[in-house]
């Protein structure tokens, strides 16, 4: 019977939402809060010069935008795309993750065949054979200060770029349950790692201290209480901004403000799906990339984006009990969303069928759709 609970809740939600969506919202409008509502999207595909439509990761680097696809790396600069493949020095054609080291401008690229450093046109490959990298499958990468962190299929690796020292963090020296790491966030002297079965690991660089956040019920097949901690121990992506930790899983979303955990699922919130590929926060707003759409959420207001069957955008804004639904003429390239990043007022979205950028947004809810 348990398999019914999701659809039931979904049914209730959908029914409610349809109701709200069909009425005029002038009387009561959701609080937009800090979440912008994009309504104009521009999409790039192979037709525009991408090496493949399947974009696995996107990272903004000043005026440049790096996109990792399943057939090479692309960079968007001065209005045009340029591609790099293994013939240029890319470790593998399937690119999984990208980060830009703010201090040096070096671009770190995680692939299925190792970690690349792209530095002003020079390619270097670090793999499990020629370096101390734990494993060639690099799901996540984050560069901060003297360190580059890589979330690999066999543990988290840390490279000290000044000394060349590699350190591996896995189930032997941290609280990881298994060494399979999915995502890493590094900044402001703190590192978060999303680990399979290990929840979220936190590392304070200065103190050289680890701690872990786990799903308190300790069971894979259930979530006992939604707000008692992480929703699940299998975490896929992690982001930390404004003192808020966001943890993505294939089972829902967790938000931790340092005192209180909140869990969000597709049946009890506007989250487009429990299957979350990636999360990245900007200021107070987390952008959640799921297999059925994109959600932005600041703890109060949700804005979700989906592409409908007519290629138009379905936008839903919800705050508390109030929600509105709107359509936009353009939409994200595909609902299977794998990455997001921000460039000024533009948001870049990597999807399984192209890269989209949101270029215009409604300033306030009262203007939405007018």
């Amino acid at each position, binding site marked *: *019977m*348990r*398999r*019914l*609970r*999701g*659809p*039931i809740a*979904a*049914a*209730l939600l*959908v*029914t409610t939402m349809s109701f709200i969506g069909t009425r005029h919202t002038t009387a009561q409008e959701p609080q937009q809060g800090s979440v912008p509502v994009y309504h104009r999207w521009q999409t790039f595909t192979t037709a525009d010069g991408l090496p493949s*439509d*399947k974009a*696995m990761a996107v990272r903004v680097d000043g005026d440049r935008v790096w996109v990792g696809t*399943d057939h090479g790396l692309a960079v968007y600069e001065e209005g045009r795309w340029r591609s790099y493949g293994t013939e240029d020095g890319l470790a*593998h054609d*399937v690119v*999984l993750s990208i980060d830009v080291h703010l201090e040096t401008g070096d671009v770190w690229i995680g692939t*299925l*065949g190792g970690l690349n450093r792209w530095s002003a046109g020079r390619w270097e490959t670090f793999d*499990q*054979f020629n370096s101390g990298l734990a*494993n*060639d*499958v690099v*799901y996540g990468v984050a560069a901060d200060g003297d360190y580059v962190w890589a979330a690999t*299929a*066999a543990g988290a690796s840390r490279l000290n770029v000044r000394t060349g020292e590699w350190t591996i963090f896995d189930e032997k020296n941290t609280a990881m349950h*298994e060494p*399979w790491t*999915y995502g890493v966030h590094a900044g402001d002297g703190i590192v978060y790692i999303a680990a*399979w*079965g290990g929840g979220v690991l936190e590392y304070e660089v200065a103190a050289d201290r680890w701690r872990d956040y786990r799903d308190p*019920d300790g*069971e*894979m*097949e*259930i*979530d*006992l*209480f*939604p707000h008692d901690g992480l929703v*699940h121990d*299998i975490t896929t992506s992690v982001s930390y901004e404004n003192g808020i930790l966001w943890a993505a899983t*294939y*089972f*829902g979303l967790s938000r931790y403000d340092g005192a209180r955990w909140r869990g969000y*699922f597709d049946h009890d919130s506007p989250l487009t*799906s429990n*299957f979350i590929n990636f999360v990245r926060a900007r200021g107070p707003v987390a952008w959640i990339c799921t*297999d*059925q759409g994109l959600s932005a959420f600041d703890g109060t207001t949700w804005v979700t984006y989906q592409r409908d*069957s007519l290629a138009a955008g379905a936008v839903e804004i919800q705050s508390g009990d109030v929600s509105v639904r709107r359509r936009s003429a353009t939409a994200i390239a*595909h*609902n*299977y969303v794998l990455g997001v990043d921000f460039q000024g007022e533009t948001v870049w979205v990597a999807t*399984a*069928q192209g890269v989209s950028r949101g270029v215009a947004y409604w300033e306030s809810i009262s203007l939405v759709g007018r």
Partner: protein
Amino acid sequence: MERNRQVVLSVLLMTLLLTPGDAALGQEDTLAYANTPSELLPYSRFQLPYLFFFDEPLTFYGPGRDKPAPADVTEVRIGFLGPVTGGRDARLGTRMLQGATLAVEDANARGGYRGVPFALIVRNDTGLWGASANELVALHDEGVWGTLGSIDGANTHIMLRIALKIDMPMVVTGDTDPTLTETTIPWMVRVSGDDRQSGYALALYMVEQRAHERVAVLRVNNRYGRVGTGEFKDAVRRLGSPVVLEMRYSVGDTLFTEQLERIRQARADAVLLWGDPEEIGLIVRHMRAMGMEQPLYGGDRLVSREFLEIAGEAADGVVATYLYNPALDDPVLQDFNRRYAERFGEEAETFAAHAYDGMTVLIEAIRRAGLNRVKIRDELYALETHRGVTGTIPFDARLDDLGPIWMVEIRGGEFHYFPTLLEER
């Protein structure tokens, strides 16, 4: 469309759910994840969980179904990833490869893929320094349409993560790690039981049937030992007889006196031995030689000729689980057993038989879907049952094999199969 269907379904289901007499527990055991009996559900005595995760079907919402099949293929490649050379697991990997090979040969004898032969691309996953992860990537680079593998739990887990990134249908037949299907990645089918089912079956048998109260565990100190016994330990605890002592040994050990003395001191009334026949065979002999007469239990790796050879007469009375019943009087199975023995000069066993079934499932999916990996995945996930040599396999929502597993008792150097308590219920 998907949404609308869900809405309709949801409304229907809501009506059902709101009918009096909440049937959440007890009545509909078979619907529960992994055939979990109600008394073994986590927190079942205290609290109904907010969410059950593994009941919903896995859907892949990504694109790729419109990608055309390549023209002029001369062979349809299927990847095989497993330990085929080097190390102890090569014995298991070789049997898995033989089963898979026979399935491919059978399929080719039936015309292959629309007249084009299937070709097995074999990759060894015992490489050093983490090289196993590279092997699935290499299979991807070689253009396979699906893969079968592997045995090592960690390797298969890593494969699964890669499979999600590269859209690779994966059939697992030799890895009994119960956590494998708990990742919710919609690209994997398991055609074999797992150690969760073994753990439940052993726990119920030992606690309910044989009324053991002081169970000890002696297991191999690696991931197979840790994960393989995890569900068993939870289950006996929930049944009221928590494990009194857990001891470990290392692969290659030949002396177990220290562990066995501790088990004796703990006054264990039954011991679960979890590991490979090489060490467990010795352990069983040592125990009997030390005068330890406790009933002994084990997993499916003990149901092997290696175990009988090493343990000798001490094997008598050992009870284990097995993932199918090779002695079943089933013409499909017996035909397979005969042809396998003719082809490879040895008797078929679990790794071979399940690999045959798994490979057949994959081949049939390719035949139905055509050369498109997302469509092959969809065909796999559309399966409800498969009639294979190991029996009729019912799949749950997550494409995990929920077919019956069996209990085995060793008597007089032979394996005697009998149903688990779950089956009898």
